[in-house]
């Protein structure tokens, strides 16, 4: 990453105009949409979103730097000009690296419950198919346990991602004491992000319902040739890619802002714990938050997360695919499957 000198003018003075910002938004949206239409390319989009999230937070900490791009790399790093290859593909490489880092962190945090869901679904139906009524409680019980685990983990996930993105290293995803400080300082932002995440999961659930009931409201779909069906499926994937990208963009941006609020305060309260982090540079005076209030906000967030788990489960009832347990846009990859 390239750190530029402190700007002499405020962003409003030298930044791009509205039209340019709109053009950039549309360009980014289009590229992200196409990338989010497939699971492999979605990793690149995830990387760009992660880099952008880190950029927002660091920008708020006062560290000015170039906005992350999709393909091209920086012309220079730490004052030294970069090579031709790095200039031509450096942005793409950085996106892939950041995407893999974020995906690894997300999977490490979500697999404990998504694997339980996947196993509960398969084992539950398998047991039911074989009329194992005597063990019928196992499947639903395992799923509920997974949902409780998800409720415990998911509210902290947006700040975990923002911290990882800002620090730009995988190990940041597992700094539990720093995460605890972030959660305490973020206050109402934790349930707000959880509710927003659940709202963002709604379109994917609705899409599953619409696809499953297509024969009722669009009977012509029953007459499609395989080629026509494949073409329509491609368009649906693209539309869902757009929703996934925009939803993740929004969530990550807001999470970055929440992080930018909470991290400097957490760093000020426990300077030693935050030594060497980006947030430590921007530490702000703060007061300790009440544990009770923090717990209450977290419980509200957990409740919203349970609704999210229900949407994912109901979506699987509408149209099942095993990978949607692991890669739901509300959980990990911005790809709707």
């Amino acid at each position, binding site marked *: 990453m390239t750190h530029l000198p402190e700007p002499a003018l405020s962003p409003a003075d030298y930044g791009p105009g509205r039209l340019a910002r709109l053009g950039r938004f549309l360009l980014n949206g289009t590229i992200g949409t196409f990338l989010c239409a497939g699971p492999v390319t979605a990793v690149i989009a995830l990387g760009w979103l992660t880099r952008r999230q880190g950029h927002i937070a660091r920008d708020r900490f006062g560290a000015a730097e170039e906005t992350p791009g999709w393909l091209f790399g920086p012309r220079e790093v730490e004052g030294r000009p970069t090579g031709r290859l790095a200039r031509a593909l450096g942005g793409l490489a950085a996106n892939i690296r950041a995407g893999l880092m974020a995906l690894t962190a997300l999977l490490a945090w979500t697999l404990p419950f998504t694997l339980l869901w996947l196993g509960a679904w398969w084992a539950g139906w398998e047991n039911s*198919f074989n009329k194992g009524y005597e063990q019928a409680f196992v499947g639903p019980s395992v799923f509920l346990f997974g949902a409780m685990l998800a409720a415990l983990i998911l509210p902290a996930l947006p700040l975990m991602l923002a911290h990882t993105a800002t620090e730009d290293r995988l190990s940041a995803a597992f700094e539990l004491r720093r995460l605890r400080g972030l959660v305490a300082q973020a206050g109402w932002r934790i349930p707000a992000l959880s509710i927003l995440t659940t709202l963002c999961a709604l379109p994917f659930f609705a899409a599953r319902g619409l696809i*499953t009931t*297509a024969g009722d409201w669009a009977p012509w779909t029953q007459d499609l040739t395989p080629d026509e069906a494949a073409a329509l499926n491609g368009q649906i994937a693209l539309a869902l890619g757009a929703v996934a990208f925009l939803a993740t963009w929004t969530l990550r941006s807001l999470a970055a802002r929440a992080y930018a609020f909470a991290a400097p305060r957490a760093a000020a309260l426990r300077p030693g714990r935050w030594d060497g982090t980006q947030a430590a540079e921007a530490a702000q005076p703060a007061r300790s938050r009440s544990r009770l209030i923090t717990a209450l906000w977290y419980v509200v967030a957990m409740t919203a997360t349970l609704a999210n788990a229900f949407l994912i489960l109901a979506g699987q009832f509408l149209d099942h695919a095993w990978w949607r347990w692991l890669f739901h846009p509300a959980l990990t990859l911005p790809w709707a499957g």
Partner: protein
Amino acid sequence: MHRRSFTLGSLGLAAGLAARPAFAQPLYRGPNVILVRFGGGVRRAETIDEAATWAPYLRHVLAPRGTFIPDLRIEQLEGVNTSHAEGTLNLLTGRYLAYRELPGVGDQLEPTEPTLFEYLRRAFDIPSHQVLLVNGEDRPQEEFFTFGSGAFGRGDHFGLDVRSEMLSLHRYKLYRTAMQLAEGRLPGDELLKVQEERAALLTKDPRGATPDPSPQVTAFWARWRQDFGDTGLKNPRGDRLLTELSVRALRELQPRFLMVNYQDPDYVHWGNPSHYTRAIAIIDEGLQRLVAAADADPFYRDNTIFVITPDCGRDANPLAEVPFQHHFNSRSAHETWAVIFGPGIGKGVVDRRVDQSAIAPTIAAAMGFAASRAEGRAVEEIFL
């Protein structure tokens, strides 16, 4: 006598008297019929498509053995639902919408028109244990297909007196709990559990008029209990259970008309996609056992007509990850098929569209009685 038993007995007697024909019935001398509901909602693609079938015995062995009807349809009528109970009653009555929902309980239909069981037993002197319906373990709602609601006041040709008997684990559990309570060998807490289990089983028949099984069926359950015990864990489960019940029934009860209500493809409303295809394969294995049992038994060999047909189709949604989900009333849910073979049945393919309501009158024609209330007409061209 227990008050409930007395009430049921009185009701049964009254209904039986009301429905008893005024003339002596002839003995039945026609062919036996085994009607196999290839149930749970199956698509043509996974069953009768020559290349893609998951039921190769059905498609490549049985279909060439008789008449193959590749285009059987459930009529697109207002109110007609392509579900299992509805489709089964269409097959049994030869009419659409010939059922009503039992008051007070959901998803439980009883026929309001005579079923094939009733037509047959009204026309001929056949004891109830030789007209059998074999049902799945978890389909208590199909316990009501053995006779119509006329026993309670509508029509004169319905009723307990001409009902079929039922073989299902539900019925076995009724037998087992009755025996366990009568034997009185269980310790107190287990006895209480059995009493509760029996009370729960009895509430599953809100008509409250199902008569006790015949001595022959009671003896059948006694032998079943001897072989498989009281736990319910030793006997086959799912559609393999239905095959086991049916094969034992052929051997021990010699039914003249047997309907087997396979059901397990139904798992893919929501479950794992492989359960659908696996269930089709299990039914195909069941067909092999049934046909082999009939071919090996002098009572059935060369004297048995098999009618194999689904209750309904299922979705063909090219946009869904699981294209063959089972919701209701999509176009392909109306599309089924039938395979009919046996003595007096020609070999070939019916290359026209046939309505599902034709199955009941076709079976009636094969057995020599008239399904007078059926809407459909027999498929005459299948007969030699």
